[in-house]
Every structure is written in C-alpha cells, then in structure tokens.
C-alpha cells in the first residue's frame, strides 16, 4: 500500500500532465501551438541552465552548444530510422517510438558534451569558466560546419514533424520535475552549497568538483532535449540555430527570472518569448523595444523577478513589503 502510494507520487505529475496536454493539443490552433512549443523549448532551456548558473552558481554561456549536440544527434536518429517500421505496430506509433529513442539518444549525447565541458571546472572559475563554455560553443559550431554528414552550413532538412504540444509539454514537465526534486533532495542541496561557499561546501564533505561536473551533465542533457524537440518541430536543423546569441538569450531568461528560481525561469522564458512574438507588430522597432524592456525589467527587479525564491514565496511577500512603504 505504502509502496503503491510512493510510486504514484513519483509519477503523478506525468499522469496529470498527459491528459491535460492531450486536451490542450486538440484545442490549440497551429500558430498558437507553435508559439506554445517555442515557449516550452525556452522553458526547458532556461530551467536546465538554471541548474548550472542558478543552483550551482557557475557561469555557463555556452548552452546553445549542448542544444546543438542533442538536436543533431536526435536528427540523425530520426532520419536514419525513418524507413524503419516496427513490425505489427501502426506507422504512427512506431514513428513516435523512434522519436522517443531519438530524444533519449540526443539527451545522452548532450550529457557527454556536458561532461567534457564540466571537466575544466576542476580548475576554472567565474569569467574564466565562462570563456571555456563560450569557446566550447564555438568549437561545436565549427565542427558541425565542417562535417559533411551533418550537412555543414545547410544542416539537415526534411526531419519528421514529431514534436507537438504533448511532447513539448511532457518535456517541460520532465525538466521542471527534475529541477524541483533535485532542489529538494540532498543532491540538490550540495549544488546550492557550492553556490553559497565552495570552500565551506568542500570542508563539509561535498565533492565540489564532482557535483559541478554532474550539474553540467544534467543541464546539458536537458538542453539537448530542448534542441531535439525544437528541430523536430521546424523539421530542420542548421548551425545557425545554435549561436552565441542563443546562449545569451537563455542566460537572460535565467537572470531575469532570478538565479535559482525554477518558476522564475519559467515565467521569464514565457514572458520573453511572448513579448518577442507580440512585438512583431512593432515592425523595425521590435528589437529596440525588446532591448529597452530588458533594461527596464532588470533595473526595476535587479535580483530577477523572484530572486532565488519561487513564485509562491514571493507573491505574499510583495504585499507584506509594500505595506511599510519600503521602496520596491
């Protein structure tokens, strides 16, 4: 009985999310669902980067590279196995199964990349580590541009359109559940300890190097998931999707949401994605307004939307704090 309860608790978010997403999927117009998928991808990216930048306090500005690794690997799997049909199963189902495998392989490949990047954390900190992650991003891009199998600058087109709101939504649920449970576990607290004080964490028995590398691996795996989901929506993967600018966009989302705040990352990713979409109406002024928005948001909420806290911690505090007339 107790066991069944525990199992149920473990899978509950997925059980709840799946039917809801099916329902949402059916009711969304294709443009709205495209935007929703975009938001989902950005949420996965922001929350996963938060594991490194927010929880662990390291500074990675090469998240797009992990995305690229996951996206390309998954693309190779789906295009390679496209003709393969599992006998006795309808084509649609077998296609979904292949996609699931592709996502898993993409995450795995990305996590290997995360391991490679995580290792320099042995010796490097702060801005020096940032340069390594940035450099790694460039190296990945250069490798892709020089590899014929990966289509060089053109990339791989004609990918199956597997990603829909259900897949993307489940990706978000998986990522958020991962981050949340991580944060509430002793493993996650080890990461927080590293962020707060590396020397003290080490002295308290936290294997700081090991946990930093692990944080990179986890973060990379989910970035890979985001990449794989994105490219199977637009049915194309090219190196241009994974530039330095993309990495910076994710950093912006994390900082804007508040370092270490999961709900902050979610809200920031959604707000920024929707803002960019809405601002299409502003023509050439679009990015000018967007950048002003960025500056203003940061100036008014310097610790991010929710600081290191979650949305439910912050909402009542606002009310309490405003009362004594303290400047926000």
């Amino acid at each position, binding site marked *: 009985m107790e066991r069944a309860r525990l199992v149920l608790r473990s899978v509950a978010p997925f059980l709840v999310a799946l039917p809801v997403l099916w329902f949402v999927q059916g009711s969304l*117009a*294709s443009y709205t669902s495209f935007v929703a998928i975009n938001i989902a991808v950005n949420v996965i990216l922001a929350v996963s980067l938060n594991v490194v930048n927010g929880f662990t306090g390291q500074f990675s500005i090469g998240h797009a590279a992990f995305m690229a690794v996951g996206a390309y690997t998954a693309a190779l799997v789906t295009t390679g196995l496209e003709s393969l049909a599992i006998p006795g199963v309808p084509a649609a189902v077998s296609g979904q199964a292949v996609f699931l495998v592709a996502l898993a392989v993409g995450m795995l490949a990305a996590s290997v990349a995360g391991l490679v990047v995580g290792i320099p954390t042995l010796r490097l900190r702060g801005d020096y580590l940032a340069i390594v992650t940035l450099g790694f991003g460039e190296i990945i891009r250069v490798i892709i541009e020089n590899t014929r199998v990966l289509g060089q600058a*053109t990339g791989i*087109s004609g990918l199956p359109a597997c990603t829909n709101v259900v897949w993307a939504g489940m990706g978000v649920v998986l990522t958020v559940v991962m981050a949340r449970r991580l944060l509430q576990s002793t493993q996650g607290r080890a990461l927080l300890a590293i962020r707060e004080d590396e020397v003290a964490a080490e002295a308290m028995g936290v294997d700081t190097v090991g946990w930093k590398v692990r944080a990179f691996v986890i973060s990379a795996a989910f970035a890979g998931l985001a990449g794989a989901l994105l490219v199977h929506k637009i049915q*194309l993967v090219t190196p241009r999707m994974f530039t330095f600018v993309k990495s910076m966009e994710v950093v912006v989302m994390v900082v804007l949401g508040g370092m270490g705040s999961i709900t902050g990352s979610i809200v920031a990713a959604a707000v920024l994605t929707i803002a960019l979409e809405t601002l*299409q109406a502003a*023509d050439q*002024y679009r990015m000018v307004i967007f950048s002003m928005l960025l500056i*203003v948001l940061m*100036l008014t909420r310097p610790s991010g939307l929710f600081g290191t806290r979650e949305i439910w911690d912050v909402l009542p505090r606002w009310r309490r704090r405003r009362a004594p007339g303290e400047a926000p």
Partner: protein
Amino acid sequence: MRAVRAMALLAASLALAACQGKKAEGDAPAKSAAAPAADKILVGHVGSMTGSEATFGQSTDQGIKLAIEQWNAKGGVKGKPITLRTYDSQGKPEEAAVAATRLVVNDKVNLLLGEVASSRSLAMAPVADGNGTPMITPSSTNPRVTKDKDKVRPFVFRVCFIDPFQGTVMAKFARNDRKIEKVAILRDVGNDYSMGLADYFLAKFKELGGTVVDDQSYKAGDQDFKAQLTAIKNKNPQAVYVPGYYTDVALIARQARELGMKQPLLGGDGWDSAKLFEIGGKAIEGSFYSNHYSPDDPSPRIQEFVKAYKARFGVVPDGLAAQGYDAAMVGFDAMNRAADGSGAAIRDAIGATKDYPGVTGIITIDANHDAVKPAVVLEVKDGKSVFITTVAP
C-alpha cells in the same frame, strides 16, 4: 529610479506608437482579422529585418514594397488592392518558421514570400506545404528548398538560380572563356549559399580539366582575411573564386590587393550591390561575377525599376531588392491569371509562369519549381558592372 521610469515610459510608448503607426499607415488590417476580406489580397513576407543579415532582409522587403505599390497604382490584382505584412525572422530559422505559421494560419495570407537564406526558407517550406499556401522565395538557392529529397515541394517556388547552375556557370566561364587552369576558392563556411556555389564550382572546374590549388574559408563579418589570402597567394592561382556576399567580398578584394595579389576574383550574384564598388574601390576592378541581369542593361524594364526604386528609397537597388521585386511580381502575375483566389489555383498559375519578363531575367518556372533563366557574367570596370557574356541554362 526616475531614469528607469522614464525609460519604461519611453519603451511602452514606442511599442504603442509603433503599433498605432502601423494602423495609421493603413497597410495592415486589424490584427484580429481572422481572414482577409474577399476584396483584398494579403501578402506575407518573412525576412531578417533585424540582426546580422538585416541588410539583405530589408532590401528584399523594399523590393516587395515597390512591386506592391506599382500593382496597386495599376488597380491591384483583379481589381483588389494588395497589402503587405512583414514579420521579422531575426536571421533565425526557428523564428522564420513561427513567422511563416503566423502569416499562413492566423493572417491567412494569399501568398508567402521569403526568405533570403536557404536555411530559413527550408524552415518555412513545410509550413507553406502543410497549409496549401503558395510560397515564393526570392533568393534561396539551395536545391532542397523546392525539392524535399526526391519529391518536389508542391507549394514552394523560387525566382532565383539554384546553386548547381550558378557554380557551374562560373566554372565554365573561368575554364573555357578565360582559359584559367589554376584557381583557388575562398568560401564563407557559415553560409549555405556560399558553400553550395563553391562545391559545384569545384566539381565542374575539375571536370573541365582545371586544378583547384587551394580551398580556404572565412566567416561572414570577419574583419581580416589576410591569413587565408596569404596562403592562397603562395599557391599562385590565376584567379580566386569568392562566392560570398558583397559585404565581405569588398574587404577581401581590398586585402588581396594589399598583399600584392593581382589575380581577378570571381563571384556570384551575392556580389550584386553598389556597396561592392564603394567599399571595394579600385581593388575590385577586373573581377568577374555571375548575375541574373546587368544593371547597365539598357532595356527599359531594368532602367525603370532602378529609377523607381531610387526615387522611392533613395538608394540604388541591390540584387536582393531586385529578386524580392521579381518574386512579388511573379506572384501577382500568377494571381492575376489564376482561376480563383484559392491556394491551389495560385500555385498552378505560378507553376505555369512562362517567359515572364522580370528585372532579373526572363523567368520560366520549370517542373522542379525552379526559375529557368540565363545567367550573365559581368566584369567590374571603372566602378561599374560591364556585361561580358550570357550563359544559357
């Protein structure tokens, strides 16, 4: 804090004003309009209006605007005025796909135009196909844009060359007309257009018995190309093929001359801009490039376009503006001929385009949905492009 508030206010009012300004201009219907009114024709354009390739996107957009204004002055297509809605792709494939979806599904455009880069057109093509909206790309040259694996994409067309054709044209010209034996290549490694041209050039040039002595690459936006040029210079080729955009080629030409290289440079239609001569100056003299048309072509069709464009936007049109103009023109011409306003009818009409007198050549759409038109080879002389020869497809 006061500064912050002032900025917030400024940003908000900018946003508001931009939306209002749009409405005031009257070239876009209210945002919530589910379907275009039957008495109007709505054209969607996805272009990189901001970002590192904004110059190409904005040129194309202006070309399209000019085409629309000219048609509207004549009374529109079948008596209906045309309006344009442009969405920005920021140079990103994923944004191009979202923008295309929004235009096709929400705004229900009758015709989709865009993108410059093949990587972004490739992201838009499934959207056009999936929703049965005809799409014409002005300048995406990768064969896969109109052809997915072996299957021709039913709703996607182009009015430009494809990479194999243009690469081959220049290889033939270099080998047969100029009798060049040793050539070096300098390509933009991050640009699929440049990569495509270089690959086909290389194959054809070798096939014709020439040798490619060096194959170097650069990245768009680089400031310095001397490393590659020094290496090329040492191999002593008779010409250097640089199938990039004018933005980089102008600097490459300058730096080649600074290193004492006297060989002519060879290029493709990406060179087509007055800026090439302005920035390249004397360095670009004596180089050759393939193009759709010669801006010096005395034919009134071309001269009128150049004049009208200059009057409207204050600058000489570049190749991308001309292609944007042609893409729109071919589209409107087809709509005018189409049996009705449905996507399929317009699609069929575009596919049936034959000998359309565009600015960038006499355009015929073939079974692969590609434009068949002869290429011209131009030489740069006294800061102008001079017609050398025509190469038929």
